[in-house]
């Protein structure tokens, strides 16, 4: 277990920069998730921590020691790859013990450590099998076992669940989280799946185009996104954005592009009829047949627990999560209320978050 400190880290592939001077500190035992869309530099960042990519400039320190020039094996890290990367000709036991064997550990000790790791991950009955004789979930568990057997300072996970089916992903997610709670180790985990990020992380680092957009706990990022990118990236279904002008009279209302006025629960700390973007999560939108804003239903998606309805409002498509049983068909007119204290406001030009002063957002209130 160790801290990880990254200072002004940059990476370019030839003349093409992919990581633009990012800085972050990970605490000892923290579960950090690097999240962002494809090409944001999250895997490159992880590979630089692992020593699999050279650093263009900046420093990476593990437990206070700068590791820029150390080879992967000298960094005392372990990495779990998206495609497992198990040695195909070796049995599960040999896969688990390979690193220990290379470190010239006595055989009896290797066997003990392999058995211990196998016990933790439920791999004991599979120790004599080869990777080709395992299911996807079992292979993933072997890959994790290969990491924990070494007792490394830092665990690195590169989209480890991406190749699993939905059910297995949920199961493995819980297993990884339980493993972290058991080992209390520092974990840096890369994913593009915001659900994984929200459910597993102690802190999330949101990256876009090689730049850190925001670092914080899952709920901090969910409740107080710094900008529209973070707001739109976290949460499922994604947050809706409604552009418009604040009411000139200073009241809590947003005037949409078609001139229609939308009542708000509060007003951001901006004077006059400034152009802003209202951000509302689908779960915070409700039906209000009396005072709601008119919208046209385009798609109805019943999920059983609730219904996702895609509507068009002033030329913008909005997704809302409404009651479990709705008698709606495309083309219907419904009236929606955006008068929620959980609404977010963003500057239309910079896309940065606008604070709402005394009416501070306290998160999603059902």
């Amino acid at each position, binding site marked *: 277990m160790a801290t990880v400190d990254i200072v002004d880290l940059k990476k370019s592939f030839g003349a093409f920069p992919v990581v633009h001077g990012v800085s972050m500190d990970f605490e000892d035992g923290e579960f950090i998730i690097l999240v962002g869309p494809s090409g944001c530099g999250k895997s490159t960042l992880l590979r630089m921590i692992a020593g699999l990519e050279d650093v263009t400039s900046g420093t990476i320190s593990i437990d206070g020691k700068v590791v820029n020039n150390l080879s992967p*094996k000298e960094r005392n*890290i372990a990495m779990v790859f998206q*495609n497992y*990367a*198990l040695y*195909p000709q070796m049995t599960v036991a040999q896969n688990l013990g390979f690193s220990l064997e*290379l470190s010239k550990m006595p055989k009896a000790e290797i066997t003990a450590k392999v058995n211990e790791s196998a016990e933790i991950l439920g791999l004991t009955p599979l120790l004599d099998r080869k*990777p080709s004789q395992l299911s996807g979930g079992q292979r993933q568990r072997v890959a994790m076992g290969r990491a924990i057997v070494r007792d490394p300072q830092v665990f690195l996970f590169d989209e480890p669940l991406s190749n699993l089916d939905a059910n297995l992903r949920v199961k493995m997610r819980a297993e990884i989280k339980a493993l972290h709670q058991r080992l209390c180790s520092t974990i840096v985990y890369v994913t593009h799946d915001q659900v994984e990020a929200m459910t597993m992380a102690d802190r999330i680092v949101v990256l876009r185009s090689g730049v850190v957009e925001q670092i914080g706990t899952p709920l901090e990022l969910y409740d107080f996104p710094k900008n529209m990118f973070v707001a739109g990236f976290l949460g499922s279904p994604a947050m809706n954005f409604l552009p418009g002008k604040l009411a000139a009279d200073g009241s809590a209302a947003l005037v949409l592009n078609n001139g229609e006025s939308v009542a708000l629960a509060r007003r951001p700390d901006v004077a006059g009829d400034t152009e802003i973007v209202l951000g509302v999560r689908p779960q915070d939108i409700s039906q209000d047949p009396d005072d709601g804003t008119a919208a046209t239903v385009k798609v109805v998606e019943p999920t059983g627990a609730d219904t996702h309805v895609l509507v068009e409002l002033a030329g913008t498509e909005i997704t809302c999560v409404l009651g479990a049983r709705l008698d709606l068909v495309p083309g219907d007119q419904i009236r929606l209320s955006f008068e929620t204290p959980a609404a977010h406001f963003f500057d239309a030009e910079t896309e940065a978050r606008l604070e709402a002063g005394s009416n501070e957002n306290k998160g999603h209130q059902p």
Partner: protein
Amino acid sequence: MTASVSSTMVHGKRRDPVLIGLWISLVLVALIWLAPVVFITFTSLKSESEIFSSAAFAFPSELQWSNFSAAWAKGNFNQTFVNSSVITVVKVPIGLLISAMAAYALAQIQMGWNKLLLVFVLFGAMIPFQVMLAPLFTLVNSMGLIDTYPGIILPYLAFGVPYQVFILHGFFRAVPKELTEAALIDGASHFTIFRRIFLPVSLPVLSALLILDFVSTWNEFAMALVLLQDKDMWNLPLGLMSYQGQFSNNYGQLNAAIVMTVLPATIVYLIFQRYFVSGLTSGAVKG
């Protein structure tokens, strides 16, 4: 309903005419390829009189094993067999090892000029060695290696490595880079990764190359003719050529000599062909 089911079943049993055609072609081609083998084997076991009195593909009425012992003694096979064995047993594994290591380095260790180096290596495979025979003789002669094992093994290595590197490079490139990276993190050096991960993973392709290289080295004639002048250094094809010249009237013994020349390569093929069947990489990564 019943009629439709039975009609579907009948339809399901109908063979694909293209497939039948392919099978017929395959059998015909196999027969054409097998005919000389059968002819040589049968003839090698017939007496002189039976060769001229029986049909070419008739099974020998009495097996003449003495043809083999006579041909072995007359053809100096004691010496040529040893020479061919030494040359092949030394050249083939060394060539494969050098090629595999070069291919691994070119495919997995990024040095910035890998592609250029690969093109340089492959350039060797593009020059027919017949063109190089005269300068090769001059070179080997100037090194005093004519009629020596190194004098034939080194040129064999030089001309064999490029195409093996080409094939192995393609194979190693297809091995997921995560395997190398996982091993690097586990603390393995590149040599360990090559030895412990890549060599076992590439057994099928190595076996294929071993068979091809064994057969081509065992049967090599042109370069041996130029570089091996002393009769005691001849390999089997040279010995066989000489035998054909001297004893061409004794077809039974001549064919016995041919069988003895071809047999080791056939045995090696039969031993290693099973590795062709399945790849070892299945299960290494998702896919």
